[in-house]
């Protein structure tokens, strides 16, 4: 083996760094003393180290921003789009681990594997984002999914948690199967798996494509729609969100969603960009169905985690409008939306994690009643997040929707835009009901006082982002614009 045949590892440096860190942390965990207090200590140490290495990975990723780099026989690509999405994913994962600091110890979940699995899943997501080939896409996706199945069932003595894990695994396996089947159809009809080759093949100037390819795209879309929990592949979401431990739900609702949406965008506008008229109507349908279901099905939910599950289905619907729009403007709007969604969602989940009564977690939305009397600052933060999710200005969520709908109007997708804004009014109903419970009602039993410094930190940070995004939105806007431009440059 000559030196020249060794692949260029620079574009994949953050991934390699994380992979090495994971192995080191695993060794550390295995050789740490066990039993009682020592387990807690190990898990605390490894969680902390994981957060630090995720932050270091953000730094590493940012240094790669700029040009388009490919490696590993053109299967792995690192461009500004990947950098933007990876920063979001890494931030989401790091915040999710921070959220679980206290929770792990209180709920007998203090095992060092937890943080390591999250980092593992994050590594899979980074691979997905950088995939430039159907095979590397699948490898990344499975690395992510398998880690997620385990984390969902992490509270192994809790039947709901194990049920969630099992359900997620079975349905997720079916979805992965569909995706793989779609990929094999594509390969069978074209003889290529590489995105660049596929893009060249499907160039609109090359005439019609065979029906088999369209079937392949549909299967790939179905598999990915499952991962982003878009209707009609959303059924697992409420159950898994409810059953999984709350910090895990927080993690599920941000990082894997962002990664899968990024992957969906890369696949759809990259290799299949030339076939836009074949898949656009499918995405429009998925988007409308997700927005409507997210709006109407959440109205009757009494469990706040289930409610957030439906809310996230709705948000995916809005993000998909940007994909229907296509082009740089559409992708830019999705990327802005994802950044805002990340902070709103993490913030809400941090508030949910603060809902404890006599030391035990409560999840009914009626348990929020009268919270503003005992927790004024927490209530204000929750109200800001919820108004932001409903898309009420001046909070960040409004701007997310603004850019999405701007794209839709520019592409003359008026029907989609009108359905979108109307379903956002319906969704506003259940969002403001949370505000109603928090502010208008009286508490039967107050919630516990202290919520832990780590939750306070996450709530304050994401609250400030959501509340004051409007003051200076330019950094997010220009970063998203650069990322979207990179996707169309190559």
């Amino acid at each position: 083996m000559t030196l020249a045949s060794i692949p260029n590892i620079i574009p994949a440096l953050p991934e390699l760094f994380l992979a090495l860190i994971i192995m080191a942390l695993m060794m550390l965990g295995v050789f740490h003393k066990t039993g009682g207090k020592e387990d807690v200590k190990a898990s605390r140490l490894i969680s902390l180290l994981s957060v630090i290495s995720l932050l270091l990975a953000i730094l590493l990723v940012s240094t790669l921003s700029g040009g388009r780099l490919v490696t590993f026989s053109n299967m792995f690509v690192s461009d500004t789009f990947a950098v933007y999405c990876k920063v979001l994913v890494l931030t989401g994962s790091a915040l999710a681990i921070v959220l679980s600091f206290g929770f792990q110890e209180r709920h007998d979940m203090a095992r060092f594997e937890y943080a390591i699995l999250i980092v593992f899943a994050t590594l899979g997501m980074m691979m997905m984002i950088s995939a430039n080939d159907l095979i590397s896409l699948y490898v990344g996706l499975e690395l992510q999914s398998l880690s997620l199945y385990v984390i969902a069932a992490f509270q192994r003595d809790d039947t709901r948690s194990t049920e969630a894990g099992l359900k997620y695994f079975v349905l997720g396996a079916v979805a992965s199967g569909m995706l793989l089947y779609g990929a094999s159809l594509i390969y069978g009809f074209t003889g290529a798996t590489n995105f660049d080759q596929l893009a060249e093949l499907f160039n609109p100037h090359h005439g019609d494509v065979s029906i088999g390819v369209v079937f392949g795209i549909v299967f790939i879309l179905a598999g990915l729609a499952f991962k982003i929990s878009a209707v009609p592949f959303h059924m697992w979401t409420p159950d898994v969100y409810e059953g999984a431990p709350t910090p895990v739900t927080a993690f599920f609702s941000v990082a894997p969603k962002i990664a899968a949406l990024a992957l969906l965008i890369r696949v759809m506008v990259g290799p299949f960009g030339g076939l836009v008229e074949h898949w656009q109507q499918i995405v429009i349908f998925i988007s409308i169905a997700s927005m409507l279901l997210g709006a109407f099905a959440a109205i009757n939910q009494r469990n706040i985690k289930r409610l957030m599950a439906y809310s996230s289905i709705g948000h995916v619907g809005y993000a998909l409008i940007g994909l229907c729009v296509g082009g740089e403007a559409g992708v830019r709007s999705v990327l802005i939306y994802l950044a805002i969604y990340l902070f709103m969602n993490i913030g809400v989940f941090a508030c949910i994690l603060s809902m404890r009564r006599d030391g035990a977690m409560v999840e009914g939305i009626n348990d929020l009643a009268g919270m503003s009397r005992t927790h004024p600052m927490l209530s204000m933060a929750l109200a800001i997040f919820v108004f932001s999710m409903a898309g009420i200005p001046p909070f960040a969520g409004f701007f997310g929707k603004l850019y999405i709908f701007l794209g839709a109007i520019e592409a003359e997708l008026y029907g989609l835009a009108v359905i979108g804004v109307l379903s956002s009014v319906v969704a506003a109903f259940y969002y403001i009901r949370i505000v109603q419970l928090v502010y208008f009602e009286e508490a039967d039993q107050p919630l516990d006082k202290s919520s832990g410094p780590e939750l306070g930190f996450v709530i304050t940070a994401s609250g400030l982002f959501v509340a004051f995004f409007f003051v200076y939105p330019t950094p997010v806007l220009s970063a998203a614009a650069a990322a979207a431009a990179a996707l169309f440059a190559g």
Partner: protein
Amino acid sequence: MTHFPILSLLTFLPLVGAFFVLTTRGEEKVVTRNARHVALWTSLINFLLSLFIWVNFDTTTADYQFVESAEWMPAFNINYKMGIDGFSMLFVLLATLLTPLCVLASWENVQVRVKEYMISFLVLETFMIGMFCAMDMVVFYIFFEAVLIPMFLIIGVWGGPNRVYASFKFFLYTLLGSVLMLLAIMAMYFDAGTTDILALTSHRFPIDLQIWLWLAFFASFAVKIPMWPVHTWLPDAHVEAPTAGSVVLAAVLLKFGGYGLLRFSLPMFPEASVMFTPLIYTLSVVAIIYTSLVALAQEDMKKLIAYSSVAHMGFVTIGAFTLTVQGIEGSIYQMLAHGVISAALFLIVGVVYDRIHSRNISDYGGLVHKMPAYSLIFMLFMLASVGLPGTAGFVGEFLVLVGVFQVNTWVAALAATGLILGAAYMLYLYRRVIFGALPKESLAAIGDMSLREKAVFAPLIILVIWMGIYPTPFLDVMHVSVEHMIGNIETALQAGQAVTVAGQ
């Protein structure tokens, strides 16, 4: 033009006050007292600031004044731009005048969560002023819709027994209207390439697009005004809201719709406006007659005044669409007068509500024996609401009727019946509450108004008489702007006709 950003200061000063209230800590009593004082002083300073702007306002030009702009979202060519002209100047004054009065009116009757209450009012003031000063559609929309948040909380937290229903209805109704306007704003952005209001006013939209845009804007403004048949949120919201909430709602928030019609619908979509004028006339006349009759049958004082507001706003919409100088000036004047009068009437209901805790007309009677000063003030505002010459209510309604008479005598005749019906329900209300014997035991110990309450009414009394006897200072502010706008609309209509003729 670089000068001191006085409009931004005016807009965001209350927010600074709200921040100070938010950060006060310590004993409940101290926090409450501090919150009240900070809110009062902040809003008073803001009022003085707005008076300063009024004094320096140049009434000889139709241009925007005190303009300031800053780059905001350069990638989208959306900028932060503020400025005022003859249309918005007086509304800004109305908002800054009423906020301190609301704070003062809530001094004693709001005892729970005073800190949050004062924060809500200060935040509300910021959004109201910002809405009137905005010179960019997106900035306007943000303030326009953000108002929902503090108002939702004010109705929901400090409201009456049915407050949850009322606050949800208020929130969702208005939101439904405004999201359609948001889409229209975006469509305008892509047609004209900008969201600058000044640039959009001179941009000519294609006629088919105008119709859709006009309808989308109308959906939003009709709910806010509110016009029949989308007015049903208003009586609920008024009845459940605390006194000061009703005051701001009636006096300022209802003006958003009329202001929006004058600022956007008429100058930006002139052809569509002319086309839809019959619709506006019909809905307004129905509103005037129908809601007046409904008001006659009300048992709840606040509900009665709420319905009378819908009727009075009917004059506003009629006047605006006459496209005559008298009609439009009358429409603006009517909004200002209604702002002062309805605010005072809700405060009047609040005074007795604080004492008896009932808004039912049947629980009162013969108050004149115990509360002479109160009866006098009530009479003044009751007559102003009826439109008695010499009060603010007369000037607006008279100008509107003069304007509409030149355009359509039938509409003028039908609208004029509103004056008669208005006199009927207001006088009937007054008789039942104030006159007669004082039979009820619950009223035996009722006391007249305190000095604080009189202080709240003093500026309103001065204004309502001043605006009735010497309206010139107010009309002067708007006159040039109104003429300028009508001139622009006529030019646009003629140009449109020329195109059609040439096409034939």
